[in-house]
């Protein structure tokens, strides 16, 4: 039983890293949003499993918040924003997909080495959780660095935050997890809207769809 408990936690946390990589691989905005929603689902499953093992009911709340906000509301609203603003659906990358994935692999290796060395005496469950959380966090940062598009940067930021929640949920006796997660989610909602409208206004002085398209057309 002990083995199975660990295995499922490991499976879910590992899948979160994998889904982070899937986000790096996407080249369409809509599919990126879908993968991000999946990321949030995996996160909420992982947090719920932590709640079950640690017997900590407040973590269930975190899981539900993650599910509702990040897997449903934010992706849906981003979908609508993209549709309304008529943004190009292709993701512009600074570096190609291959090198980015390679760099991501290096980051995962780095975070594993650092975390496993730093936490040699810790409980194996918390240990691997922390290692995975650091990987997810770094991958989110990598995504923000290597993507030009504002939407994908926001998604990168939110996946980074998912890593933080994973870390908080893995560490036993973290009382403020619920509050932190609520606060973060609200913050992110603001950032999403804020960055978005702000940046687009800043660039084009308008959110007019036609202007955006004409500008793009000239650039091509």
């Amino acid at each position, binding site marked *: 039983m002990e083995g199975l408990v660990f295995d499922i936690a490991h499976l879910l946390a590992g899948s979160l890293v994998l889904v982070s990589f899937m986000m790096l691989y996407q080249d369409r905005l809509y599919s990126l949003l879908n993968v991000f929603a999946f990321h949030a689902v995996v996160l909420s499953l992982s947090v719920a499993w932590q709640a079950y093992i640690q017997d900590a009911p407040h973590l269930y709340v975190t899981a539900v918040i993650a599910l509702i906000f990040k897997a449903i509301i934010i992706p849906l609203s981003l979908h609508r924003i993209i549709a309304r603003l008529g943004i190009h659906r292709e993701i512009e990358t600074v570096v190609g997909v*291959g090198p980015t994935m390679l760099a991501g692999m290096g980051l995962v290796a780095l975070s*594993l080495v650092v975390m496993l060395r730093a936490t040699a005496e810790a409980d194996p469950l918390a240990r691997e959780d922390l290692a995975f959380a650091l990987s997810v966090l770094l991958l989110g940062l990598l995504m923000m660095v290597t993507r030009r598009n504002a939407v994908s940067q926001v998604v990168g930021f939110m996946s980074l935050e998912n890593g933080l929640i994973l870390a908080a949920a893995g560490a036993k006796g973290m009382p403020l997890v619920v509050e932190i997660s609520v606060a973060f989610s609200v913050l992110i909602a603001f950032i999403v809207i804020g960055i978005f409208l702000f940046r687009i206004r800043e660039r084009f002085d308008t959110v007019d769809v036609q202007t955006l398209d004409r500008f793009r057309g000239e650039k091509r």
Partner: protein
Amino acid sequence: MPTINALLFCVAALLATSMIAVALIRWKGATQLTYGATLLLTATAAALAAGRLFGDAATPLTVTLPLGLPWLGALFRLDALSAFFLLVINLGAAAASLYGLGYGRHEHAPHRVLPFFPAFLAGMNLVILADDAFCFLLSWEFMSLASWALVMAHHRIDDNARAGYVYIIMASFGTMALLLAFGLLAGPDGDYAFAAMREAAPAPWLAALVLILALLGAGSKAGLVPLHAWLPLAHPAAPSHVSALMSGVMTKVAIYGFIRITFDLLGTPAWWWGVIVLIIGGVTAVLGVLYALMQNDLKRILAYSTIENIGFIFVGLGLALAFAANNMAGAAALALTAALFHVFNHTLFKSLLFFGAGAVLTATGERDMEKLGGLIHRMPMTALFVLVGCVAISALPPFNGFVSEWLTLQAILLSLGLPQWGLKIAVPAIGGLLALAATLAAACFVRLYGIAFLGRPRSAVAANATDVDLWSRASMGVFAALCLVAGILPGFVIDGLAPVTQYMVGAHMPAQASVPWLSIVPIAESRSSYNGILVFIFITFSALLAVAVIHRLASRAVRRAPAWDCGFPDASPALQYTASGFGQPLRRVFGAMIFHAREEVEMPPPGDTSPARLQVSLRDVIWDALYAPLANLVLFLAGHLNRLQFLTIRRYLGLVFFSLVSLLVVLALWP
């Protein structure tokens, strides 16, 4: 007579051959005489070394000659490691001599080759036999200079002069690094005998410094990235049998130097040495083969592929270092065996392939693949042997290249036992790099063989080629056969390496010759095993069975007809795939990032009948980032120092005076 004396006698005879070649240079038979003599001498030396390796290899033989440093003499030693490398070197040298018997007749400037060839062989043998730093460095430099002279044999060809220039600079750099390494090893007392260095245990930082210097010195000779720049220029420039020697044999001398210093003289390794060597080896392997895929010159492809194989060997050595540092002697023995097995294999197939390139050069006068094609019809024997070489170097069963790759992968799978996290994670990643390098090598040799030997001739010279002389074919045939034998009976090679690994890391792989069915079993049969001979028999048997059944029961009728090609009446051989065209997908996948590969298409305007042009530009990133700035710096300094040539005599005297005074001041202040 003890074996070592006989070997030294062989070396002396090689030097004498060199003198005789100088004396008889105008005589018609000089070519046959020289190559005949070197063949005889190196074959004897190889037999002596093999006898030692499979006989009493555990006890080293030593001899001291009253030469060299007056207080030390010239020390020579024959232990298991040197016996193995002597065997490899003299085997390659004997085949090159055999090849030279035929190939040398086409040489238009024999006086530029013959005297240096035996001297080069003698130099390589002496490096392996040397047992003190002075002797080692002297022979090393002798070997470098002799090979430089051979590279410059055809100095009137434009690129060769540049190749020789780059080579001599890099060779001097390497020797300097080794000189410093030995200086540090000898310590303040300056005892240059290897025996004394073995006894002394250098401080950790000192040992690390020596490791770096050994990597620079031996690595520049072997062609480790980023010190490889000279290799693809110099190796192809020499006559083909010398190219085979430089690529197949001289790089092994460099590897010997590295093993001797790090495993033997330097004492217990630290774990991170392994990481450095592993990473450099893995990067070298992948970059070397990627460079090879971008080339169109037969011999240059082979030279770049040498870099790849050197990287492969260094990965094995890095693994052995990592295991040895953690007292995992059995695993270290497996990794070292894999590396040394690949040393042996690479000598076989790279010499074979260079012989093949030389045969193509003799038959057509072309090294450019875009002008070859269809040689399998004109040169059937050469084509068969080169095919064996290509399959072997691509690490495909049942040939020998696969066995060493397999052993390396088995060693990589033991990395779980390593305690350091960095190593645990780095080693499988390096394994991925090796697998990438191996498949890219297969792509590279499909390209080489498919363009040069298959298809239809792309030029008149390729259409009228005839197969080469018997000597050349014999030397290729012998090595092709050895590639197969070492591939299907690897157990005997592994057993031959047992005394070497026993001496270097204190353990050896389990004896393989007694395993039933002649399988090779590195650790335990439930873990992994491979049986080359059974795989070979199965494939041959099933292929013959299929042929027999189909021919007997179904149909054996054959009709020759024009090629189908989807109904396209394809008249001109120029419509075949070219070498650059074949490499295009891989260039697009890997080259865009690493070589800044750019393709530009120039289309004529509508109505214009001029042809469209496709231009591909590649940049050597390492050359741009490392060598070009260095060269610019040297030029800059030289430009400024140039003024010193135009001073008055008084100022020159002043310079000498001031340097003398400053030296005296330094002496006065020295504690």
